[in-house]
């Protein structure tokens, strides 16, 4: 069994987060002609979904994203992301609504979700950092300690 000094050392040991690459999506809106070009740049989201809400006054034109991965419904458009790193789409509308675009995204592999253009995921999802736990059970089984004298990790 570990000597009691082990308990003191527990305090010194921290846990680093399991390497959950935090995904994010940036949006850039550029006026072009009589409409707007929107470019979404994805970081670290191999499989996910994005729902963009177009501001009032904008109408959907087209996207360079595959048709079977795009769905438009009213003022909202959904994108299925499978491996893409950029999505470009066009809308018709006045340039002054550039700031009024809103969108949410989710990473279907890590469970993270966030707001487009907000940087770090707002909702880290279950696969992210965990806090250091408290030292657990200790030597509960007194009788079984009989056999615990044989350290299991021996003799290989």
């Amino acid at each position, binding site marked *: 069994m570990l000597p009691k000094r082990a308990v003191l050392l527990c305090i010194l040991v921290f846990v680093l987060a399991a390497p959950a690459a935090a995904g994010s999506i940036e949006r850039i809106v550029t006026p072009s002609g009589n409409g707007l070009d929107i470019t979404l740049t994805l970081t670290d989201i191999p499989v996910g979904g994005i729902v963009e809400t177009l501001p009032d006054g904008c109408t959907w034109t087209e996207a360079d994203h595959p048709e079977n991965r795009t769905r438009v419904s009213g003022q909202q458009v959904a994108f299925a992301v499978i491996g893409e790193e950029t999505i470009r789409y066009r809308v018709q509308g006045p340039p002054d609504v550039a700031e009024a675009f809103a969108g949410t995204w989710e990473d279907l592999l890590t469970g993270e979700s966030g707001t487009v253009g907000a940087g770090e995921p707002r909702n880290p999802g279950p696969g992210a950092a965990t806090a250091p736990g408290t030292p657990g*059970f200790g030597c509960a*089984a007194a*009788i079984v300690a009989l056999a615990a004298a*044989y350290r299991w990790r021996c003799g290989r």
Partner: protein
Amino acid sequence: MMTDFGREEYARLAEKRALFITGLILVLAALTGIAVTIGSAGLSVADSYIAILAGLFPGAVDLPDRMVESNAVGIVWGWRLHRVLFAIVAGFGLAIAGTVMQGVLRNPLASPFTLGIASAASCGASVAIILGAGFLSGYLVIGNAFLFAMLAAGAIYGMARLKGMGSETMILAGIALMYLFSAVTSFLQYLGTSEKVQEVVFWMFGSLDKSSWPKLGLVTVVVVAVVPLLLWRAWDLNALAEGDETAKSLGVPVERSMAGFMLAASLVTAVIICFTGTIGFIGLVAPHITRMVIGADHRTLIPASGLVGAVILLGADCLARTVIPGAIIPVGIMTAFLGIPFFVYLFMRRRDA
């Protein structure tokens, strides 16, 4: 009149026996009711009973969500229930085996283990665990434990046939066998790696962890088959207990009877301990207690001590599962602990004699 007095005494004794057996059955039922609710899965008492009903009548009971989530039915029917029933049947079997042996050997301190059966089973299990060699592939440990135990019984019988079927002969032979098998087991442990030795040690503790429905069925069949036979011949056992000469004069075929009883007791013991490992003291303590209460007439002694054995083993198992939260102490260790106050009591009583 003497006969009236005798009849009265006998009636009182018969009443005492009936009360005792009824009381035991009630205690057993209560213990069973408690035992199925014990466990580290955190099921509530109500959930355990609902789970039992749901298993008996699948589809008829509407399970609340929390029970589906906790898999209460799976836990109760796949783990707890057969373990509890196994404790009852195993306790019953070990106790009647002990009773029979104490009668045949005319020694109230005899038990199935006195004849080296436990050591033989442990040896068989060691061979299976450490050497990986056995008779029934896929059931190495169980097969070996059973066969070695029966081998020991056969050896006793053989030696007794050679030297005469006296109880002293059998006990001597038993002790010799016990030392032989213990030596082989120790040697095997020397050869083995630490993990294998640990496995053997755990097997020898005796536990109900490995019970399952098929095993329960098998043991029940054997016990149910053997008990009526024993009851049918219980009078012979009464006669044998008086001495070989007395028995012969009463027309009991002594040698055949002894052999038959030994075989029955060994068979029941072997079938039980090959699944559980060596659980001691039940075969020693249960007949003793019963004899103190209702006397030595084997026609009632056998079933009554069986019930006492069932109560002891089930009670020990309940304790074993609750004493240390989160851990299950092997039930053989618990029965060994329970044997201590019993022996202390016997020791104290000695002064009166």
